[in-house]
């Protein structure tokens, strides 16, 4: 189960006003459980187009996307209930404003479950539970989502998707615009959701520090092609980052600078400041 891309290409129609990068012959798979994946790449590389295939928001021009056993291709298949696929894969948009629309937080969260015929009482219980999961208490239920701070809105939009209990959660730049504390809290939240529920989490991000610290697999898009699929370790050790328009995480940048300037041979592949400090201490003792 999970999602399997087979030679997926997507081209926007010729006269289409939208400019998004087309994607070319993309093949990979995502397990239904236990993965923490970062989808990275320059702006306009096709990340969002790729992500929208993961829950059949758009259909491939060529190739197929198998979503939990159902093959999604160019032609709509009457036998597939696409809405049911979307229950397996939840997509959280970059700007929560595009997703929130009800007058209270509770109404926003129960909207999805009600759509899938969950009884009202049960939907409300779910709302309370998912709100707690994203670190907000029940006093938020009756608040207007539009009066919340950016970070709170993000959490509510995530709670709305969690309420559908998807197996795979896809989040488009969930941390952009948050301060360092807000970023950490949200990433820790994803980590704990993943730990407790074993859901697979896919985040689109430009933040290489978060990629290195939190994720276990990286997909790199470059001009519509999937050019890398591997661990963050492998990415930062071996991949042509400049060509992909990516950069090193800050820890590696700083340690590299120390090595170059002071002629040390510190192991630069450290994920956190604490690990970097240890590596420096070891290197200077030698």
């Amino acid at each position, binding site marked *: 189960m999970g999602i399997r891309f087979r030679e997926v290409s997507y081209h926007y129609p010729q006269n289409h*006003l*939208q*400019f*998004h*990068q087309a994607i070319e012959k993309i093949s990979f798979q995502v397990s239904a459980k236990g993965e923490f994946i970062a989808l990275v*790449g*320059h*702006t*306009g*590389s096709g990340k*969002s187009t790729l992500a929208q295939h993961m829950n059949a928001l758009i259909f491939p021009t060529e190739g197929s996307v198998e979503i939990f056993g159902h093959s999604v291709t160019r032609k709509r298949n009457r036998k597939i209930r696409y809405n049911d696929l979307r229950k397996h894969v939840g997509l959280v948009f*970059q*700007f929560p404003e595009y997703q929130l629309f009800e007058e209270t937080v509770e109404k926003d969260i129960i909207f999805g479950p009600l759509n899938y015929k969950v009884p009202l009482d049960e939907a409300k219980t779910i709302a309370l539970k998912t709100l707690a999961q994203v670190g907000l208490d029940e006093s938020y239920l009756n608040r207007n989502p539009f009066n919340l*701070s*950016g*970070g709170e809105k993000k959490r509510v939009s995530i709670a709305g998707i969690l309420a559908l209990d998807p197996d795979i959660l896809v989040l488009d*730049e969930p941390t*952009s*615009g*948050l*301060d*360092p*504390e*807000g970023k950490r809290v949200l990433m820790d939240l994803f980590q704990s959701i993943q730990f407790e529920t074993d859901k697979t989490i896919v985040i689109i991000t*430009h933040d*290489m520090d978060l990629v290195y610290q939190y994720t276990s697999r990286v997909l790199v898009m470059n001009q519509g092609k999937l050019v890398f699929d591997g661990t963050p370790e492998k990415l930062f050790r071996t991949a042509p980052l*400049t060509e992909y*328009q*990516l*950069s090193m995480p*800050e*820890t590696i*940048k*700083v340690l590299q*600078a*120390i090595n170059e*300037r*002071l002629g*040390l041979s510190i192991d630069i592949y450290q994920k956190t*400041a*604490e690990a*970097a*400090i240890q590596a*420096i*201490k070891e290197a*200077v*003792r030698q």
Partner: protein
Amino acid sequence: MSMINIQDVTFSYTGKRLILKDINLTVEQGEWVAILGHNGSGKSTLAKLLVGLLEPKSGTIAIDGVLLTPDTLYEERKKIGIVFQNPDNQFVGVSVRDDIAFGMENLNVPREEMLEKIQFYAEKVGMSDLLEKEPSTLSGGQKQRVAIAGILAMQTKIMIFDEATSMLDPTSRNELMSYISTLHDEGITIIMITHDMEEALYADRLVVLKEGAIFEDAAKAILLRKPERFREARLDLPMALKIQSGLSKTDEKEKRVRDFLWEFVSAK
């Protein structure tokens, strides 16, 4: 004469909770000031006050020696360019070209010159292939680059970047930062609103907001020696200083690394 002079400014949206309290801030021509603060600290509100999108509840703001009032606002705004975090909030044109032109049209830039500038600044942000596209259909990072080109084309004396890099990929972000450095070298006054400490290192002066008030205001080299102040303001330290804080001050070998890290953050 100062480029920006903010005196005793307070602001609130509803009349109850103060978003900004007793803000006093003077910025000289050619300074590069980073305004730092946690989410909700009031930093974006301060930017909106500076460009007259909001009006202070009390206190005064002067730009280039002229007090902002309903009468002067229209003229004074031409001296300030602002790039917001979410570019969706600043699109008006039906094509990328129109959008880059919009600010210049307000400044009555002659047509020939405008066309040249559109081309020049679109190339600068790497969007010259997409001039005929409709802005609402671009990716987030591309929109931001269009917005930046439009503001750069106005060649204002003051440029405000309100978390403008948060949606850019690492390469576009580096490019923007180095372009801002060029503007700074040309004598443009730069106000950079951010919570990214690595980005703040490019500034000469750091102003830290906490819960709507100015918590620190000092030269970068001075403030970076007080790491606890950043933590108290719920901000991170730059990575180099986080690492530095874990190294021994007495051990000769570790001290060498410490000294280098200090040089590393000061040199940006």
